């Protein structure tokens, strides 16, 4: 994530692991899918939000 910020990606959604960006093998299949859904919801929120500099969308923006 620090790389994403450093190179200037304007909208960033943090994930839990390099080998599984839209997943989490420590969860059961249903919960993992729910986590994937959460990430995409945050991504949609991010593209609907105006930003002026690299901004992290980690779910604390109260969407």
């Amino acid at each position, binding site marked *: 994530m*620090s790389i994403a910020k450093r190179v200037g990606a304007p909208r960033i959604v943090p994930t839990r692991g390099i080998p599984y960006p839209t997943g989490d093998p420590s969860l059961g299949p249903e919960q993992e899918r729910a986590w994937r859904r959460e990430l995409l919801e945050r991504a949609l929120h991010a593209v609907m939000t105006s930003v002026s500099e690299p901004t992290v969308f980690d779910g604390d923006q109260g969407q």
Partner: protein
Amino acid sequence: MVHEVHELGLGEHTSYAAGRLTVGEESVLDLLRDPAFADVRLGCTSPGDRVRIVGVLDAVQPCSKGPGGGGVFPGLLGPALPVGRGSTHVLRGAAVLVAGYLPRAQEAVIDMSGPAAPLSPLAATHNLVVEFAKADEATWEDVDVALRRGLVRVAAHLAEAALETEPDAVEQLDEPGATANGKPRVGVILNLQTQGKFKDVFVYGRSLSGGLPTVISPCELDDGAVVSGQYGHPSLKNPTYLHQTHPVVAALRASDELELAALVLCPEPVDQANKELISAHAARLCKGLGLDAAIATKEGGGNADADVTLKLDLLEDEGITAIGILAEMAGRDGTGPPLVVVPSHATAMVSTGNYDERMTLPACERTLGRERIALLDQPSTDEIELPVAAIYCAQSTLGWGRLTCAEPVA
């Protein structure tokens, strides 16, 4: 207790006298024997030979504290207990190497002469090279375990030959204490790869994977407490040999102005959240140890840059001067960004050269390890063109080498 080796050869019995190390073939093959192997062969090579070792997996410095090892390589040969006290006999200038194929191992090259020789620490040692073939019924994991066990046994066995000999030098290595002698306290942070099979490093014979940073005495390194089981990124490799002869520890011991205060071992997790935890914890640990500065080393490729740069930032936040030793991956013409993960505010880093720059290595007479270089699909004896990335320890992130992209200092 340092015993210098100036000559190496195979013979009937293992012996050491007047700088000449003779390796007893039968005894050594006996120590290496394991159901995982269909065949084991021994070869010797010395600095200056027109020899190329291809597919180097690990290298170990012969050391022993007594018959049977006396406790060295805890957890693998000796009992799994802290070491680093008392006398240890080392055969300086000799090494036991293993070369061949293992899964996930990237082909590593050592040239004992020629332009690539100054780039590898093992080109300056008299090497006993172990070659092997896997038994059909064995798995590669079995082979990996058998090699590691065999290697440390042989290393201890060879040093045992010098136990009764008067050492060429005796080095007094003190354990760091909580002494307040006025000099700045500097810690060494040793980041170790912990990615499972063929990509792990062993402390007291066990992996640090899933654990938190810990502190051991630097003297434990000399007794083989850290043994490598990872075989990737040849130029960035930290073989057991360099853990035993840790260059940063040695440089701090040699410094009159700084005190070697602590050695911190850290696993290198793959995921970001754990990297952040380990690095933050390590920074707190360093603060608790009363360090004024810390030098962080790494293991592995670009992903592992984060394990160093995160620590540099967090250490600086704790008011500890932080230095990182990092290799650059600046592309073939050297104009790409040097680091995969840059620190956000720390800036003190030492460069161990560009991974991607290419070199031409001349043809050689004899090879040990692998007969063909799979990467190039050429016989190992050919003249070959390779990136620096393939030369064993050329960019040593433990600081062994002189390769750098830094501008010369006036």
